[in-house]
């Protein structure tokens, strides 16, 4: 413990970089999918039609009530079973990355739907009214009038959620997916230099998230002025 050997980080740089790419890829897909499906879920939840709003609310509340790590476990074991049921083939139809992607999109869409729902509700009722009065239909009033303003209002919260999502990508190591943390963990086990590698991981996460939080703060200040 007394002597640190940082050369292991350099030695395993390629594996660590590959791990980081996996983390970033998962992050990007989960973010895009989460915002897209989160928007649809938010609209469903706000719909006057109960056949839409009740299941949407049920899904969001269920996902938000279970630990993220459980969702990842579930989909790792469930998606292969469901896929094999539909295709009739046995065995591992999807790998850990695909099942992680499914789990992340579902969980993030539930989280994002709550943010977006609050964003939509922050827009005064007169705005969609004005859009309808000009002859726009529901879709046009959402796309051109309500959602652009809602996203603008919610941008800081959405970015904060993105920072949390980036940290949460490290959870996939439980399904043996080699993300950044997974790669570091593996290298640590091979070399016996776990402390150095975990410290390195912590520093990288800290730098990325700290920079992002700082950017969110700057953005918040700018949006506050232009309002």
């Amino acid at each position, binding site marked *: 413990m007394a002597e640190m050997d940082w050369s292991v980080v350099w030695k395993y740089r390629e594996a660590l970089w590959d791990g980081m790419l996996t983390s970033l890829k998962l992050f990007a897909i989960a973010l895009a999918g989460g915002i897209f499906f989160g928007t649809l879920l938010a609209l469903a939840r706000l719909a006057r039609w109960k056949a839409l709003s009740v299941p949407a609310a049920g899904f969001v509340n269920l996902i938000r009530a279970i630990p993220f790590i459980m969702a990842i476990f579930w989909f790792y074991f469930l998606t292969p079973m469901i896929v094999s049921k539909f295709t009739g083939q046995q065995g591992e139809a999807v790998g850990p990355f695909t099942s992680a992607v499914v789990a992340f999109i579902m969980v993030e869409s539930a989280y994002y739907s709550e943010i977006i729902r609050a964003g939509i509700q922050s827009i005064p009722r007169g705005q969609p*009214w*004005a*859009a309808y*009065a*000009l*002859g726009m239909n529901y879709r046009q009033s959402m796309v*051109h009038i309500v959602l*652009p303003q809602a996203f*603008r209002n919610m941008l800081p919260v959405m970015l904060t959620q993105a920072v949390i999502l980036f940290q949460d990508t490290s959870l996939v190591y439980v399904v043996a997916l080699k993300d950044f943390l997974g790669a570091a963990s593996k290298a640590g086990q091979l070399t016996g230099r776990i402390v150095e590698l975990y410290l390195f991981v912590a520093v990288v996460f800290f730098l990325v998230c700290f920079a992002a939080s700082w950017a969110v703060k700057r953005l918040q200040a700018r949006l506050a002025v232009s309002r």
Partner: protein
Amino acid sequence: MIDLRAVSKWFGTFQVLKDCTTRVAKGEVVVVCGPSGSGKSTLIKAVNGLEPFQKGEIFVNGISVGDPRTNLPKLRAHIGMVFQNFELFPHMSITANLTLAQVKVLGRSREEAEAKGLKLLDRVGLLSQKDKFPGQLSGGQQQRVAIARALSMDPIAMLFDEPTSALDPEMINEVLDVMVELAREGMTMMVVTHEMGFARKVAHRVVFMDHGQIVEDCPKDDFFGSPRSERAQAFLSKILHH
């Protein structure tokens, strides 16, 4: 043009509109007034289907507003509406506010929509503001833009829902001037307002509402000369004697 027949509406068990019947003929200007909470705003929003109602019928240009088969967006595209809080789209420039619905709803080309929008903006005296955003304009200016936006759709009738009640006193007249001009050009108008000066000047008829009911519906001169109901007399004496 606008024909309301025994319109009733409830919020839960509370009845906000009680058998409201009135009409606005083509080219007519009808002012709707009454104490706050009397259902004026709800009534005018029912005319273009923004507020659903449970009983009665409303016909605009012969088309039933309450009929679920009616294509409401298509109907609304030809009825202009001006709101108490202007409701310009704050994330868009003034020009974009004027052209968006023309392009998306009426299918006009961008150039055509812009020419039309800017002509109307000039008419309300705000052409120089075309590249600004709503937040940079005063309340009175915003409301004039909102009128120009509604007019850009070539409406067959205009609905005004308390267009001046959110304005500072010195800005009320610039908006009323635009409305007076519009009335004199023969636009069909239904106007919810407390501006009795405006009513005196251009209204053909005055509708007085109280507790969700139309209490008085008569030619302007009768209303100001000798309102029949006590409630209308009390209302007039309250708002005129200041």
